[in-house]
């Protein structure tokens, strides 16, 4: 796959914005590290266990996991974010890679984190298959992401159109995708309050959500006012 098509498969411009990062913090997602911390309390991970963070961005999660004694590795498609991470002094192992083709051996990691990144993927089912492939038997998948609290709206934009909201699906779809990829969902928690808090901060920073979208060339959908996006933590275990 050529670089240009990789970029098309995982648009990252919005997340490379320093102004947005100023609102979200270095984790560049709702809740900062709160849900990472929450997930870590639930996983029986041994010291030095190998953990993969897909869509590591500036490396906030990778740094946190390494502080907790884990051998965390970060992958991201954005050369800009990886460069900015290094410029900021983030040293953990991070590399550029496409989540649809993970550069990892079969059954080589104990846990995979995807924090607000699965919804950005062009082919989320394929990415989950890759997660299953690289995870050891009974390894853990941690997904935090946007989802639709009601029926999914019909948005004009395609999934992976540059923001996680366009790739959001209903809870049932998230769980079915995980099951189809060989996982058993062990935990589902709603954390929409984290999303609302971030949205509110964006309003203060950009003037309105409409102005926030416009800053990234994204038009508000006609039915934007009617949609109810939520935010969740899903933990799943790879089946034997």
């Amino acid at each position, binding site marked *: 796959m050529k670089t240009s098509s990789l970029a098309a498969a995982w648009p990252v411009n919005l997340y490379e914005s320093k102004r947005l990062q100023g609102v979200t913090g270095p984790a560049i997602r709702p809740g900062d590290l709160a849900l990472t911390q929450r997930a870590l309390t639930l996983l029986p991970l041994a010291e030095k266990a190998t953990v993969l963070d897909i869509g590591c961005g500036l490396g906030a999660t990778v740094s946190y996991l390494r502080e907790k004694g884990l051998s965390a590795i970060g992958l991201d498609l954005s050369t800009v974010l990886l460069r900015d991470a290094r410029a900021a002094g983030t040293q953990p192992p991070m590399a550029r890679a496409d989540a649809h083709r993970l550069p990892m051996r079969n059954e080589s990691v104990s846990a995979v984190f995807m924090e607000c990144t699965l919804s950005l993927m062009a082919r989320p089912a394929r990415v989950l298959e890759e997660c299953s492939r690289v995870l050891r038997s009974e390894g853990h998948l941690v997904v935090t992401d946007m989802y639709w609290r009601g029926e999914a709206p019909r948005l004009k934009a395609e999934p992976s159109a540059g923001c996680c909201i366009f790739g959001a699906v209903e809870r049932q779809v998230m769980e079915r995708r995980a099951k189809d990829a060989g996982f058993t969902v062990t935990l589902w928690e709603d954390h929409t309050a984290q999303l*609302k808090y971030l949205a*509110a901060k964006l*309003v*203060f*920073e950009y*003037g309105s959500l409409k102005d926030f979208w416009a800053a990234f060339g994204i038009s508000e959908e006609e039915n934007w006012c009617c949609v109810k996006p939520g935010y969740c933590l899903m933990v799943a275990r790879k089946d034997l």
Partner: protein
Amino acid sequence: MTEQHIDPEDLKWRCSKCGEKLVAAPAVVEYMGNRFTNDLPQCPKCGWVLVTEKIAKGRMGEVERILEDK
């Protein structure tokens, strides 16, 4: 809200108590358990904050709708 969102007209007001000209400075806004720090016009002496109708019905109104899930 960063300083760029403050209407320059709002900084022409003076504090009725202190007589000081208002300045743009960080103010903490709390709503439904959430805290936000944003630049708002305020008196540099006593700290009174000016929340104009435009801000109240605009950005703060949108934030209120988001947090209340309306």
